[in-house]
């Protein structure tokens, strides 16, 4: 049952942790770099 971190374990760990870290970084970068008052985007759905 107990084993060193395998290549697949590394893959899942790095993808999961890296993915959420990148998403958090991207979101905060976008939040902090955009002026507060912006004109509305057109209503309705995205591209």
């Amino acid at each position, binding site marked *: 049952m107990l084993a*060193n*971190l395998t290549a697949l374990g590394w893959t*899942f760990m790095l993808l999961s942790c890296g993915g959420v870290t990148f998403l*958090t970084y991207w979101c905060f970068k*976008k939040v902090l770099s*955009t002026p507060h008052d912006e004109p*509305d985007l057109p209503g309705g759905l995205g*591209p």
Partner: protein
Amino acid sequence: MTNQPAQQWGSRLGVILAVAGSAVGLGNFLRFPGNAAENGGGAFMIPYFLALLFLGIPIGWAEWAMGRYGGRKGFHSAPGIMGIWCKGGAGRYLGVLGVLIPLGVYFYYVLIESWCLYYFWEYLSGGIGLDPSSAIEVQVKQTREHFAWVTGDSAHGALFADKDHVVHPMLVAFGLTVVGNIWFVYRGLSKGIEAVCKYAMPVMAVLGITILIRVLTLDAPAGTTGQTVSDGLGYLWNPNFEKLGDFKTWLAAAGQIFFSLSVGFGVIINYASYMKKKDDVVLSGLTASATNEFFEVVLGGLITVTASVVFVGVAVTAMGTGGTMSLGFKTLPMVFAQMPGGAFFGAAFFLILFLAAITSSLSMLQPTKAFLEEALGVDKRVSTLMVTAWGLIGNFLVLWFSKGGTVAGTIDFWVGTFFILVVAAVQIIAFGWIFGLERGLEEAHHGAQIRIPRVFQIIIKYVAPAYLLVVIVGFCWNNLPDPKNADGTPVLNADGSRKLGELSKIFTNGDVQIGWAIILVTIIGLVTVTTIGAKRWRAQGLDLDGQLPAKD
């Protein structure tokens, strides 16, 4: 609804951190790693991220948009806002659950918060008195006895009958915790909740990353078990794909995402109601969710179980991963006893847990406070007094009926778990079907800094409701009837008695009945206030059934 000035957030970052603070709680650090380790390790992340994509993020966006829209129509509570989105009284009374959930969870959550504060204090004072050279079985026994003493697990009223102290130290921690909560909620959104979260969230991140670095750089083997950091990480992250064939794994992943993000909890809808039409909700919602995920996957997924395997081994770690409280309060104290500098890291860890808990508990009082103000027309002093009294009565009942944690467990199961699923289902159906998907998305896109991708049109309308239905049915199937073995015979407890499902417990277990009595009295109180509020709102000419467009 009252003559006092309307509350609002101080900054956009503030509301994001407040929502993220509400979401980041004990479950991120303690429940997630146990859940992942038990359900396929790395492979668990596949259903976990699918649930994030198909449930957590879309329902979160819907809730943010619903809250902001309701705020523009003069409502800040779930009954008022859901009455608008569901176009009538049924939605308004279902919205009562959106106040019941945070208030009911507060009844017991603030006690857990007090445990964190008390353990933090103990580690500042040197630890909880474990001897690291003693046999692991002795340490297991000691940590369990200590936890039972802190929680008053042995008998009803045990915390009030401590012969060694004038006042049980946990009650002092409880008093401080309650005063802190009430004070910050009284100070309001900007000066209270937002101010706490703006400091607490970065502090938690810094402390968490510090502990993470310490854990990942432990010497090998650091403990007496002969196991390394790589073993600890392997225990949690090595994938077991066979688990993906088990429906319970998918249910556990959906449950983890769902309850971690605080969607359907009645908090986001309240917080978003204080935003203006031009305030972004799409990027804000995504940022709050992402922040929660960072705390859960990176800090929760790399620290606790890894350290536990290194210092106390797989067997003891596995005992702790069966429940949120076991890992945090029974297993990790043994880890800190073994770890060099354990008192410091123990204090830091329980400070993180306390901050995570208080940023969540603050969010639990605010919806009730807002509800009382707008339904009864009282000012913030009266509403704070009322919510304080209501909360204290609930806290006291859970404190007194402490034996086995059954009363708290009952409220947690029904209010803190089952009703959340119900509220989320109502919200996503109201957004996608009653209010109208295109209209709902148009509302969400006012002031949006990013667009919701078109694929979410299908996800919000069809996938999320269907996924949620499967989760609700699966949850009920697994928990409500009496459990049976594969051959149809009843599952037995260790003492030979028959193990009961949650439905049977209502009719046979006195403590479960006390828990239900607390729930029912609270529901009756909230329904009464809603009825009074609906009359007031109608008399004031408010559009409480959502028949008119919102003002800009």
